[in-house]
C-alpha cells in the first residue's frame, strides 16, 4: 500500500471521527471542534488526490493543493464567525434566563460583558 493510500484511509477515518463528534456532542463549542476535524479529513483527501496527480516535475497536483490552502483559510473564517455567534447567543440566553450567578443580573447591561474573556480580573 502506498503512502498516499494510507493517508487517504486515515483521512476517511478522520471524516468519520469528526462526523461522530459533530452529531453526538451536546456542547456547541465541541461541535465546532469536531467540524474542524471533519474538515481536516476532507482537506487530507484533497491532498491525497493531489499527491496521486504528481506530474510535470511537481510532487503533487498544485491545483487541489491551492484549493486546500483556500479551504483552510475559509474554514478558519467560518470557525471565527461561529464562535462569535455562539458567544453572543449564550450571552443573550444568560441575560433573559435567571442564572445562578445572580451578581450579574443587577449590573447595568453595558458591564455584563466584563467577564467574557478576561474572566480573571
Amino acid at each position, binding site marked *: 500500500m502506498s503512502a498516499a493510500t494510507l493517508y487517504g484511509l486515515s483521512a476517511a477515518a478522520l471524516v468519520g471521527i469528526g462526523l461522530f463528534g459533530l452529531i453526538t456532542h451536546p456542547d456547541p463549542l465541541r461541535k465546532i471542534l469536531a467540524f474542524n476535524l471533519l474538515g481536516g479529513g476532507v482537506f487530507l483527501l484533497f491532498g491525497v488526490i493531489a499527491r496521486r496527480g504528481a506530474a510535470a516535475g511537481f510532487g503533487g497536483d498544485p491545483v487541489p493543493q491551492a484549493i486546500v490552502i483556500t479551504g483552510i483559510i475559509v474554514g478558519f473564517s467560518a470557525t471565527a464567525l461561529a464562535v462569535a455567534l455562539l458567544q453572543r447567543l449564550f450571552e443573550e440566553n444568560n441575560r433573559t434566563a435567571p442564572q445562578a450567578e445572580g451578581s450579574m443580573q443587577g449590573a447595568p447591561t453595558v458591564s455584563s460583558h466584563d467577564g467574557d*474573556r*478576561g*474572566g*480573571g*480580573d
Partner: protein
Amino acid sequence: MPDFLIGTAIFVLATTALGLLRFIYGPTDADRMMVAQLLGTGSIAALLLVSAVTGLSAATDLAMVIALVAAFGSAAFAKGARDTESGEDA
C-alpha cells in the same frame, strides 16, 4: 544513512506519541499545557530527520514556523488557562 535517519525519525515520533499519554492522563490542566511544547520539539525533530533524506530547504522553513507557532501556542495555553480559572487566585 537514509535508513538511519528515517529510523531515528520513527523512534522520535514514537517517544513523542508515548509522551502524549501524559496529556490523556493529566491529571491537571497544567500537565496538558505542555503538549504544544512536546509536539513542537518532537514533530520538528521527526520532520527534519525524515526530510534530510530528500533535501532540507523547504523543511527547515516549515520547522521554523512550527517552532514559532509552538512557542505561541504554549504561551497561549499557559495564559488562556489562567484566564479561565483564576477568578479567585489571581
